[in-house]
């Protein structure tokens, strides 16, 4: 078995009903059939399915037991690719202790891919997942499976060129990384570009100085601030920037409470004799923008915090799920707060992982292998390997079939 498609029959049936499960199972069988790799579907809770591999079923949503099952299965066959079908409700993410904050957890797929255990959770298999957030309609999963089926059948839409969006604050780091992806292609910077000029509908603003105006200020001051901030967004983003792209890269802000990804810039000016410093976070991406673009067969990497956080989300409330629903081949992002280099040219953390991943993808490695090797290279090069490095290993994961490559 070169590739294993793993899911949980009971959980799928409980959420999508018997009819929904049948549709998903049928699509998975077609995916296994068209895949050039020796592929098997394993329902981890189904005795008939697991006993074919001389393994006991795992019915509970116990991540340790699931990990042990995956480890035994992959070791038995030297399996190279692991595709998990479903999100947290179907095959739960591992809850790992946040290395930067012991009071918080990081949702992770890293332990599932780490079958020869090491402390850094370095992947030993090329793993991907097709998440389903909190939806009750199987179409989100079916669309992702169909994307992979079409890829293996050779029915792919033509993609060329690449696009990237970066917060203005991180311009130098993004340029440095982006020129490695594609020379002479400009990054779209935000807030030069945004989704609109209105505050706060499209632009989030925070007052850093003076402190007395952080929470309350005279109406005249608020009005002057809004005028300054509105002027910072010079162009409205055209969704076509994402259309027909091979690779799409984001170095922006994200949050698990709202779907928007945001840019970042510091503004300094004087109002009523006071020196003001504002942080401006303009919206740069929402699901409705993704729907207006044709992103089929694109490979997406985002550094946004919570960029791949999908628990209880839908394609309407998560850019990640929307990208996948709209037919991207693969989406890489973080389930928690991610880190990058603040101001200097040289990439760190998420920047480094993005760089390595795109390096391997451009060399036509399968996306799962590219992601696996990017993490392995990350472990081999980052010194000293600090808490943020370990968290980066935990929190970044890949959505999509890991055995597809850039068309």
């Amino acid at each position, binding site marked *: 078995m070169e590739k294993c498609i793993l899911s949980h029959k009971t959980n799928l049936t409980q959420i999508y009903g018997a009819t929904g499960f049948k549709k998903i199972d049928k699509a998975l069988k077609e995916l296994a059939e068209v895949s050039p790799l020796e592929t098997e579907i394993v329902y981890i809770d189904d005795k008939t399915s697991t006993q074919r591999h001389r393994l006991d079923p795992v019915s509970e949503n116990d991540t340790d037991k699931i990990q042990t099952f995956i480890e035994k299965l992959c070791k038995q066959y030297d399996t190279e690719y692991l595709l998990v079908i479903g999100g947290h409700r179907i095959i739960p993410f591992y809850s790992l202790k946040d290395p930067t904050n012991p009071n918080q957890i990081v949702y992770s797929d890293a332990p599932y891919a780490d079958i020869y255990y090491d402390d850094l959770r370095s992947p030993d298999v090329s793993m991907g997942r097709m998440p389903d957030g909190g939806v009750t309609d199987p179409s989100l999963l079916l669309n992702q499976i169909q994307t992979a089926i079409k890829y293996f059948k050779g029915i792919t839409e033509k993609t060329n060129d690449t696009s990237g969006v970066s917060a203005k604050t991180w311009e130098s780091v993004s340029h440095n990384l982006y020129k490695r992806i594609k020379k002479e292609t400009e990054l779209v910077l935000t807030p030069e570009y945004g989704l609109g000029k209105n*505050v706060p509908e499209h632009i*989030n603003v925070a007052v850093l100085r003076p402190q007395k105006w952080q929470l309350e200020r005279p109406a005249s001051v608020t009005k002057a601030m809004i005028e300054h901030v509105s002027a910072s967004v010079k162009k409205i983003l055209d969704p076509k920037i994402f259309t027909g792209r091979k690779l799409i890269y984001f170095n922006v802000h994200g949050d698990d409470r709202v779907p928007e990804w945001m840019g970042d810039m*510091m503004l300094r000016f004087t109002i009523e004799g006071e020196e003001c410093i504002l942080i401006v976070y303009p919206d740069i991406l929402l699901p409705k923008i993704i729907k207006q673009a044709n992103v089929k067969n694109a490979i997406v990497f985002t550094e946004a915090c919570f960029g791949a956080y999908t628990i209880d989300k839908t394609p309407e409330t998560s850019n990640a799920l929307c990208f996948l629903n709209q037919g991207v081949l693969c989406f890489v992002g973080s389930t928690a707060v991610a*880190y990058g280099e*603040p101001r200097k040219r040289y990439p760190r953390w998420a920047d480094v992982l993005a760089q390595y991943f795109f390096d391997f993808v451009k060399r036509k490695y399968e996306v799962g292998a590219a992601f696996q090797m990017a993490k392995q290279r990350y472990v081999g090069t980052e*010194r*000293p390997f600090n*808490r*943020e490095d370990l968290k980066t290993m935990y929190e970044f994961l890949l959505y999509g079939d890991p055995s597809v490559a850039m068309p």
Partner: protein
Amino acid sequence: MSEEEKIARLKEKVAKDVLKDFPEMEGVEPEITSETYQSTRTRSRYGRDSGEVAVRVLKYSKEIPTFRGITFKKVVSVTIDDETEEIIKVAESRE
């Protein structure tokens, strides 16, 4: 040199070299930890003979209220080589 003096000097260095770019961290007291990291690559720049590197981590956190009503949490984490006092890494959250 006392521990207090060393901490004061590191804080001053970070304020001068790093926090000048982060006015939002003005007045924020860092959470300071001492840590030892394994350096498994023998050719690592920061690898000591023992295969370990001792660092201090100064972590600055601030919650920033916005016009939209959402509060953003910003974290800047500075890792400093304990021996050379060189700033090795500066991490900024993408939240």
